[in-house]
């Protein structure tokens, strides 16, 4: 089986890869959002602590 | 604050029975609603307008309209009952009556049930009475009209009760009106299905009783649980 045949999925390529592609996209976006949120939270903490030390 | 609510709150009617309390709350809310009749009318006019828009949207063929009628009337009733939900608790919340009610020795669930019933009489019952007239616009048969009325009589109180939970949860929030619809509409789907299904059963010659009895069962369920849930939601919102 060559790769062209594999991606064609017997004519169902659009549906199969549309499903898995969007799944991958959603996972990546969610992971990015979650990491971003954590980074923001940590950054806020750092700002808060630095402000506290200066006082 | 009306004199009736003063007597309710100070609890000077000692030995007030459950039904006495219930009727007191209903009477009070009805009096308040009658002083602002415009609010009641707006809901009714909205209902009539939405239903009348459908034939303009899909065309005047009577066959199609007859088929659509139950769904259209029910969806319009659903939307109209969402519209009036904001008024259920907001006035009492703003003038502090609600807080007094919570401190009252009487059960908050019963007070809430009274408020819901009063709200239904003001906003739900007019829809039920108006529905047959609108049904005629859609060329519904006499039998179908009776079933429509019966279904709405059983169903609209459920909508008010489920809606009360949403109204209590969103009390005092900005943008509460849209939020209430978002929360409550998915929960109302069974009512819509059975209500519209009953009318449709008439035209297909199936038994109407099963659908109406399911609606009745939902009504009993809602009557038992939603006042209590609403009371809990109010406590959360008022903290």
């Amino acid at each position, binding site marked *: 089986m060559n790769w062209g045949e594999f991606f064609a999925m017997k004519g169902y390529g659009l549906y199969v890869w549309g499903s*898995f592609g969007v*799944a991958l996209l959603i996972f990546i976006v969610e992971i990015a959002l979650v990491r971003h949120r954590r980074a923001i939270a940590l950054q806020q*903490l750092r700002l808060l602590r630095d402000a506290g030390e200066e006082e | 604050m009306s004199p009736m609510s003063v007597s309710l709150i100070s609890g000077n009617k000692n030995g007030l029975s459950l039904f006495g309390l219930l009727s007191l709350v209903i009477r009070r809310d009805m009096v308040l609603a009658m002083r602002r009749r415009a609010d009641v009318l707006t809901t009714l006019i909205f209902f009539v307008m939405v239903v009348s828009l459908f034939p303009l949207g899909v065309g005047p063929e009577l066959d199609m309209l007859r088929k659509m009628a139950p769904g259209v009337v029910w969806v319009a009733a659903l939307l109209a009952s969402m519209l009036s939900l904001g008024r259920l608790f907001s006035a009492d919340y703003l003038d502090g009556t609600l807080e007094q009610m919570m401190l009252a020795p009487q059960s908050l669930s019963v007070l809430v049930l009274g408020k819901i019933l009063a709200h239904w009489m003001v906003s739900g019952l007019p829809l039920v009475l108006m529905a047959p007239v609108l049904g005629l616009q859609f060329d519904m048969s006499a039998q179908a009209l009776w079933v429509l009325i019966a279904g709405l009589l059983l169903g609209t109180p459920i909508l008010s009760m489920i809606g009360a939970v949403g109204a209590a949860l969103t009390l005092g929030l900005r943008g509460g009106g849209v939020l209430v619809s978002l929360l409550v509409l998915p929960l109302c789907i069974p009512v819509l299905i059975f209500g519209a299904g009953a009318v449709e059963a008439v035209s297909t010659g199936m038994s109407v009783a099963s659908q109406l009895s399911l609606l009745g069962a939902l009504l009993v369920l809602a009557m038992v649980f939603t006042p209590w849930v609403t009371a809990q939601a109010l406590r959360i919102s008022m903290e």
Partner: protein
Amino acid sequence: MVPWFAWLSAVLFAVGLYISFFVAPMDAQQSEAYRIMFIHVPASILSMFIYLIMAGYAALGLIFNTRLSSMMASALAPTGALFAFLSLWTGALWGKPMWGAWWVWDARLTSELILLFLYLGFIALHASIDDPRRADRAAALLAIVGSVNVPIIYFSVKWWNTLHQGSTIKFTGTSMHVAMQQGMYTMLLACWLYAIAVTLTRVRSIILERERNAQWVLELSEAK
């Protein structure tokens, strides 16, 4: 603990995808299109279980007033909503070649859509209340009411669907090949671990955001 779940999930995804595409044989009736099942079924299962778990945590938070369980509930909601959406999306892409329509008003599809609405309602209510304690409690009550309603909605929709004959779709319950089963369970497990990893990371952020004034948070090594 999060990296463990994340890495295990990634490995299982790799294995699961390999089985799904290279080991599992072609289905006789549905040709290659059935391979959507390997992502569709886990997404549907997770969207339902996450709702139950969310409602359970929410109830715990409401009854015992434990803050962590409320935070868990609000951390689970976005992941659950995404899985519900994914389930609908892949279902549509599976339905088009198999049934000839992107969407049919089947009981399962409709219930899944309503589940998505319930998730969105939970998130919207939580987001629109500024006080986090009130938001937790109000959203918890909504989640519980929703979970009581889900079976009622499911049966009413199912009943409604049988009433409207013509759109009844039966999922072909043919016996699955062993490799298909293995692929599906691997993918399911991978999705579970993914959901756990993402939720735990999110709940850690929520804790940091809410407890930013507590001393122990400031002493965290990561914050330095």
